C-alpha cells in the first residue's frame, strides 16, 4: 500500500536491528515469541531437573536419597514450574505469539506494547518463584491446598504464590491480545470459517484464560491474607471452610488443563492436515469442539473433589458434566483420524509428533474417564493413576504437540533447517521413553500407591524402577532437540519460504518473515487447508 513499507530484500525481523536493547524493548510479536521461547525453555529444563530428582529418589522404596521435606519441595517446584511457567505459556506465548498475527494476515497483535508487558510480567512472576526456589522452596504441592498452605506450611508459600499470581496477569494479557486480534484484525476475506484451526483453538484457550485466571488470582490473594493475618476464610478453627479454597482453585485449574491441551490440539490440526495434504475432516466440528471444550470445561471442576467431603449430589453433577466434556475431545480425535483417510501422508518429524500426540492423548483422555467415574475415582484419587493420567495428556499430548509445532515452524521462525535424521530419532526416543516412564504408573496407581510419597512399600519397586529408567531415556530425548536446534541456528541450511508445501498465510511470506510480516496485506479468497485445489496450495512438494 505505502511505498515506504516495502522491505529491502534480505531484511527480516531478526536482522533488522541488533543489540540487547533491540530485543528487550521490542514490540514485534515475533521477537517477543522468541523471548518467550528462551524463558519457557529455561523453565522446562528447570522443571525437568526436578523431575529427574523425583525419579532418582523413587528408585528405591525407603526415602534414602533425600529427606521427605526436600522431596516434597521437589514435586511442588516441579508441578508449579511445569504448569505455570512452562506448559501454560508454551504453545500460546511462543507459537501463538508468533503465528496469530501471521495467520490472520496482520502486521502485529492488536496491542503490541501489552504483549511486551506480558513478557516482563511473566519474567517478574518467574523471578519471584525462582527466589522461592533458591531460598528454600515450597512444599505445598502445586495445588496449594488449605489449611496446609495457609496455616501449617513453614516454607516460602507467599513468594511462590505471588509468582503464580503475577504470571496469571501475563496470561491474561496474552489472552486478551489474542481475542481482540482474532476479532478485529483478520485480513480481508478471512472469515471465521476460513481461519486455521490453530486460531480457533487459541481463541478458545484465550476465553478460558480471560474467564478463569482472575479467579485463581483472587484465591491466591485470599490464601496470602489468611497466611499473613489469620482472617479465617479458609481456617476451620475460625469458622472457615478449607473446601472453599478447593472450589475456587479448581474453578480455574480445571479449565487450565484445557489451556494446556487446546493449543496442542490446534497445532495437531495444522500438522495432520499439512502432512496428509488434505483439508481437516469436519472442519466446523473441530472448530466448534474447541469452543465447546472451553465452555463445558468450566462446569466440571468438582471432579477433583469427589472424596474431599463435598456434597454427594454435587459430586454426581460434576461427574455427569465431566463425561459431557469428553465428547468434544472424542469428536476431535475421530476427525483427525478421518483426515488421514485417502490422504497423501508424509512422515516428516512434525507428523511423527502429531501421531504421538493422537495416540497418547487418546490414552490420557480415556483414562480421564476412569477418574470421572465416581466409584473408580474413590479408589484411584491421589494415587499414581492420576499422575499417569495427566502426564499422558500434558507430556504425551501437549509437550508432543509443542515439539511438533516447534519443528514445523522452526524454519519459519528462524530461517534455519534442522537435521531431519536426528529429529526423527529423538522423536522416537521421546515416544519410547515416555511410555516406559508413565505406563507403569497406571498400574502403580491402581495397586494403590499414593502420590506425593517419597518412600513406598517394597512391592512397588519394580514398576518404579521401570518408570525411572524411562525418565532417563525421556530426558535424553529432550536434550537432543535442544542441541540440534541450537546447532541449526549456526549451521542449518537456509529455509525456504514454504518448506513443507503448506497452506496458510504464514507460509506465503519469506522465512524468516519481514518486520511487517507481509509485503502487502494478503487477501484471502478460499477456505483453509485447500490442499486439493492445485492452484491455491502453494508450491507442490514431493
Amino acid at each position, binding site marked *: 500500500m505505502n511505498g515506504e513499507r516495502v522491505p529491502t530484500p534480505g531484511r527480516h525481523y531478526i536482522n533488522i536491528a541488533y543489540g540487547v536493547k533491540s530485543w528487550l524493548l521490542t514490540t514485534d510479536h515475533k521477537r517477543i515469541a522468541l523471548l518467550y521461547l528462551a524463558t519457557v525453555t529455561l523453565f522446562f529444563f528447570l522443571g525437568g531437573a526436578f523431575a529427574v530428582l523425583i525419579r532418582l529418589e523413587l528408585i528405591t522404596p525407603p526415602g534414602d536419597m533425600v529427606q521427605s521435606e526436600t522431596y516434597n519441595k521437589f514435586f511442588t517446584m516441579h508441578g508449579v514450574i511445569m504448569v505455570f511457567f512452562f506448559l501454560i505459556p508454551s504453545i500460546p506465548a511462543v507459537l501463538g505469539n508468533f503465528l496469530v498475527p501471521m495467520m490472520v494476515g496482520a502486521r502485529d497483535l492488536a496491542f503490541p506494547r501489552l504483549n511486551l508487558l506480558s513478557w516482563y510480567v511473566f519474567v517478574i512472576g518467574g523471578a519471584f518463584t525462582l527466589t522461592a526456589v533458591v531460598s528454600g522452596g515450597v512444599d505445598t504441592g502445586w495445588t496449594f491446598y488449605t489449611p496446609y498452605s495457609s496455616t501449617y506450611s513453614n516454607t516460602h508459600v507467599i513468594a511462590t504464590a505471588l509468582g503464580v499470581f503475577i504470571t496469571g496477569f501475563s496470561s491474561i494479557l496474552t489472552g486478551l491480545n489474542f481475542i481482540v486480534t482474532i476479532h478485529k484484525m483478520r485480513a480481508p476475506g478471512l472469515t471465521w470459517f476460513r481461519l486455521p484451526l490453530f486460531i480457533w483453538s487459541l481463541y478458545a484457550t484465550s476465553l478460558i484464560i480471560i474467564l478463569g485466571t482472575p479467579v485463581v488470582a483472587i484465591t491466591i490473594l485470599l490464601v496470602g491474607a489468611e497466611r499473613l493475618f489469620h482472617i479465617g476464610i479458609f481456617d476451620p478453627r475460625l469458622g472457615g471452610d478449607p473446601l472453599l479454597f478447593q472450589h475456587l482453585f479448581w*474453578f480455574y485449574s480445571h479449565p487450565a488443563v484445557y489451556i494446556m491441551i487446546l493449543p496442542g490440539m490446534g497445532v495437531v490440526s495444522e500438522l495432520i492436515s499439512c502432512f496428509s495434504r488434505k483439508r481437516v475432516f469436519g472442519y466446523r466440528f473441530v472448530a466448534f469442539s474447541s469452543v465447546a471444550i472451553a465452555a463445558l470445561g468450566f462446569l466440571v471442576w*468438582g471432579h477433583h473433589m469427589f472424596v474431599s467431603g463435598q456434597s*454427594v449430589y454435587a459430586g454426581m453433577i460434576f461427574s455427569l458434566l465431566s463425561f459431557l466434556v469428553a465428547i468434544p475431545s472424542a469428536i476431535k480425535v475421530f476427525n483427525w483420524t478421518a483426515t488421514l483417510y485417502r490422504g497423501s501422508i508424509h512422515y516428516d518429524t512434525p507428523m511423527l509428533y502429531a501421531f504421538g500426540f493422537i495416540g497418547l492423548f487418546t490414552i490420557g483422555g480415556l483414562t480421564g474417564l476412569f477418574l470421572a467415574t465416581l466409584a473408580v475415582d474413590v479408589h484411584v484419587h491421589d494415587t499414581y493413576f492420576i499422575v499417569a493420567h495427566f502426564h499422558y495428556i500434558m507430556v504425551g499430548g501437549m509437550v508432543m504437540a509443542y515439539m511438533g509445532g516447534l519443528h514445523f515452524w522452526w524454519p519459519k521462525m528462524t530461517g534455519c533447517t534442522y537435521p531431519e535424521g536426528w529429529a526423527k530419532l529423538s522423536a522416537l526416543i521421546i515416544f519410547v521413553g515416555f511410555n516406559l516412564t508413565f505406563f507403569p504408573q497406571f498400574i502403580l496407581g491402581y495397586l494403590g500407591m499414593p502420590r506425593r510419597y517419597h518412600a513406598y512399600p517394597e512391592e512397588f519397586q519394580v514398576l518404579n524402577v521401570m518408570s525411572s529408567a524411562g525418565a532417563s531415556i525421556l530426558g535424553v530425548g529432550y536434550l537432543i532437540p535442544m542441541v540440534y536446534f541450537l546447532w541449526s541456528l549456526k549451521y542449518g541450511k537456509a529455509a525456504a519460504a514454504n518448506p513443507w508445501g503448506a497452506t496458510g498465510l504464514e507460509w506465503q511470506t519469506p522465512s524468516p518473515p519481514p518486520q511487517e510480516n507481509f509485503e502487502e496485506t494478503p487477501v484471502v479468497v478460499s477456505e483453509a487447508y485447500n490442499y486439493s485445489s492445485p492452484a491455491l496450495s502453494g508450491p507442490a512438494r514431493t
Partner: protein
Amino acid sequence: MSDDAPTTRGHEPVRPASHVIVPPRTYLIIFGALMALTLVTTAVAYVDLGPLNPVIALTIASFKALLVVLYFMHVRYGTRLVWCAAAIGFYWLHIILALTLADYLTRGWLAPMDW
C-alpha cells in the same frame, strides 16, 4: 459475529461507528434513576420482608448495573460483539456461584434421607 467481518480492514477512513453520541439529557435521566433506586434500596432494607430482602436488594442492584451498562457504557448503542463481551463475565459469574452453591446447599441432604 458478522458485524465485525473483515471488511473493517478496508482502507476508507471511517469515523468509528460505535461512537453514537448520547445526549447529556439521557445521562441526567439515568443519573436520577440511579439515585432514586439507591434511596429505594436503602429504605426497603429497613423493612423486614424475610427472605425477600436480599432478593429485592439484588434485583435493584442488577437493575442499576444494567442502567449503567446500557447507557453510561453505551452498550445499548454498541455492536453485538460488545454486547457479548459485556454479558459473558456476568454469565460466568453465575456458573461459579451456581455450581459452588450446588455443593454447599446440598451438603446436609444425605443425613435425613433414608435410602
